[in-house]
């Protein structure tokens, strides 16, 4: 075995493979956590795009939700300090208040998107871009004002601690660790993905949503109110974006930084496309993106030893930072032609038109 690793090329490949397995099993928890905002963003995209509305504003929605979730938690925490933490996930009143604020922010931002793109029939990508810019401006402005005085954090959820007997099981223990050693938002993602997937395919709402996204006129003539359904879906999608925002400041971390979503809203869109507009597919894509991201981090923070390590450490760290974005582009370029979106996506619906 030892000798095999020294064989040129083949040995290097083997080293790489072992390193990959090692990184993925050791970092399962972080990969799933990093996939959470991407999956939630993609779920927001599913809600929108399956009913025919492009949402490029997920990034801004998550950013604004992250900020207001954090801010409200902080303000509530200052008003009622020293609350005891709940039994699970370290729940406190400020954190719950923050979570609700994040969800509300997602809904408000979605309402703006819905109004612009559905009612006013503004180009949907332009509408989404406006949301991104406004979100960036508002959060940046208030955050800078807040940073002049020290703003205490409102705290964050504490990850669940699975029993050690479970995580120590050889070979599969890391799976328990991965799925159970998580905060509530990350944990909820898996449930949400499955629920939305089933509802989309089997429920009345799902059938109507898909019909509206494919052929709104047909849906309308079958008695479905296209405008109302799109509104409802976009707003529900806002809840997912809000939850995704809350992940940044209430689950994964507990502080806010300007522009901290760092393009994850856009990567979520790519995951949506890669996952062929299915929640489960998008979730798998999100795991892929998160895996690539954490691989980059692992190479920088704990590079493998030996020949492989020597090679990997000569690669500039910026390449690993750029990796998620590069992979997004490659995936888009490789996949788009073969992935068919809802037929009516991006087209505003006009109810009454002559003849």
């Amino acid at each position, binding site marked *: 075995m030892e000798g095999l690793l020294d064989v040129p090329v083949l040995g290097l490949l083997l080293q790489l493979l072992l390193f990959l397995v090692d990184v993925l099993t050791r970092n399962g928890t972080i990969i799933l956590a990093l996939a959470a905002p991407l999956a939630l963003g993609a779920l927001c995209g599913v809600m929108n795009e399956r009913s025919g509305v492009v949402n490029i504003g997920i990034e801004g929605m998550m950013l604004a939700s992250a900020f207001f979730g954090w801010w409200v938690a902080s303000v509530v925490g200052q008003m009622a300090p020293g609350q005891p933490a709940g039994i699970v996930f370290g729940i406190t009143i400020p954190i719950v208040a923050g979570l609700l604020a994040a969800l509300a922010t997602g809904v408000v931002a979605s309402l703006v998107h819905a109004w612009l793109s559905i009612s006013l029939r503004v180009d949907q990508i332009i509408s989404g871009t406006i949301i991104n810019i406004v979100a960036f401006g508002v959060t940046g402005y208030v955050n800078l004002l807040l940073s002049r005085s020290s703003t205490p954090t409102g705290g964050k959820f504490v990850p669940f601690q699975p029993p050690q007997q479970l995580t120590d099981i050889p070979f599969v223990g890391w799976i328990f660790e991965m799925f159970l050693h998580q905060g509530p938002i990350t944990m909820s993602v898996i449930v949400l993905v499955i629920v939305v997937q089933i509802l989309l395919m089997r429920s009345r709402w799902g059938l109507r949503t898909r019909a509206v996204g494919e052929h709104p006129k047909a849906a309308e003539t*079958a008695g479905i109110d296209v405008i109302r359904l799109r509104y409802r879906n976009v707003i529900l999608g806002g809840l997912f974006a809000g939850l995704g925002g809350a992940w940044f400041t209430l689950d994964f971390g507990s502080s806010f930084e300007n522009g901290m979503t760092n393009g994850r809203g856009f990567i979520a869109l790519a995951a949506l496309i890669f996952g062929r507009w299915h929640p489960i597919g998008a979730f798998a894509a999100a795991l892929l993106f998160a895996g690539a991201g954490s691989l980059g981090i692992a190479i920088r923070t704990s590079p493998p030893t030996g020949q492989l390590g020597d090679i990997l450490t000569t690669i500039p760290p910026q390449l690993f930072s750029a990796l998620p974005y590069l992979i997004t582009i490659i995936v888009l370029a490789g996949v788009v032609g073969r992935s068919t979106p809802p037929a009516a996506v991006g087209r505003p619906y006009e109810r009454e038109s*002559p003849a």
Partner: protein
Amino acid sequence: MSDMTSAKSEMTSAEPGMPVADNRVSAPALEMRGITKRYPGVLANDHIDLQIRPGEIHALLGENGAGKSTLMNILYGLAKPDEGDILLDGEAVQIAGPSDAIRRGINMVHQHFMLVPVLSVADNILLGDETMTNAIFMDRSEARKRIRELGQRFGFEIDPDEKVGRLSVGWQQRVEILKALYRDARILVLDEPTAVLTPQETTEIFGVLRRLRDEGHSIVFISHKLYEVLEIADRITVIRRGRVVGERVPSATNEEDLAELMVGREVQLTVDRGESHPGAPRLSVRGLNVKNDRGREVVHGVEFEVRAGEIFGIAGVAGNGQDELVEAITGLRRPSAGQITLDERDITNAEPRALHEMGVAFVPADRHRFGMVLSFPLTDNFVLNEYYEKPFARGPVRDEQAILVHANDLIERYDCRTPSATVIASTLSGGNQQKVVVAREFDGELTLLVLDQPTRGLDVGSVEFIHKQAIAKRDAGTAVLLVSAELDEVLELADRVGVMYRGRIVAVLDGRTAEREEVGLLMATGGRGGGITPVEAPVASA
């Protein structure tokens, strides 16, 4: 809501089993009174009165753009009338939207089918009126059962799990009708239901409609085809320019009478196509295979020739590979095998520009998609494919003056009704937009003219104009290829008719002697079931 339930109980209490049609002559199931609808610049409906009795097939006859569809959209709640009332069983109702109409027993089969191709038959039928197991999930197995039952009752069995996109248009139409029956429709509106069907399919659908009528349903049959209306309708209301101009019963009228009512002047029912004098073959297609967007081969080994001075028609039910064939000939799509030549030059892989420079002109079926740029002024649309040539450009520089002069010239010669040459194209009516395309394409000396559904959706005047121009081009020695799903148009114009079925030309017939039924059977079956052997028709007076 309350008037609805009372109306229903009244219906059921009335003598059951009586032949409804005779019983209720005085009590219309549906009445529309003084319906008026204005769109910017158009009076689509002008105080229209219409009465539909229970158990009758009532034809609504009118030209394209006469206001039939608007009226029916109002009935179906898709448009709001500016004035007028709708009465169901004698009671005034407000129809808030399609779901309201459906609840009141009104259903509509639209000209462009309102089906979602990627969904199954069952899902399409369920949509909007889902059979549920609980508040959230649908009961698909119950739905499948009911759909099978309904299908059997009306003589067409259908697999509820088949994707609608995979069905032929004829079957899609049946799905539409099933959808209405699944919702217990009392009043069924069919908008141009036969436009995409072969004569045989039409006969079958007529059978279904008669059976529905005999069960007491009221049917509104919208059409502009005179012979069909005479065949199927119990009563006929004729609409012209948004007004009711007459009411007839088939036994007391004929095609000429109806045509005059419909158009408002005496019309020639067929164009005088005159003698043609075909010369040498100009376009020649050999062994052509073409794939569609999804990579499936939809044109197989097609061979035909179009001679100078002849119109070669291609008849076929829409979706049998005609679109791909035309796109291959006009350079918009690469064929996967075979050869196309024009005047003995190979043009198999020629680009649209090269073809244009060889004198090939093309009037596409979808003018909004291919034929013009709606947001551009007419001036630019008139030079859409020759903007780079002299005198419209010198090198990379456009000559705005020359472009304007050209536009004004074409507007005058082709009788486009427009306030000026610089108006935005989208502001013109459909007929005038098509004239812009026709003017641009017909102008100049042509070797080959490809017409794909050149008159779809146009009024009689525009249709006549375009047909005459096409014949004039033929007489000038151009090879004309006419593709149309409207069998009548092909038979009226073409010197020879090729019938396309599942990507093959299954027969070539003489356009002057071919029978509607014969061509229809070929369109429907490819000639295998009908006992008609595909024959190469002799070229008329070579």
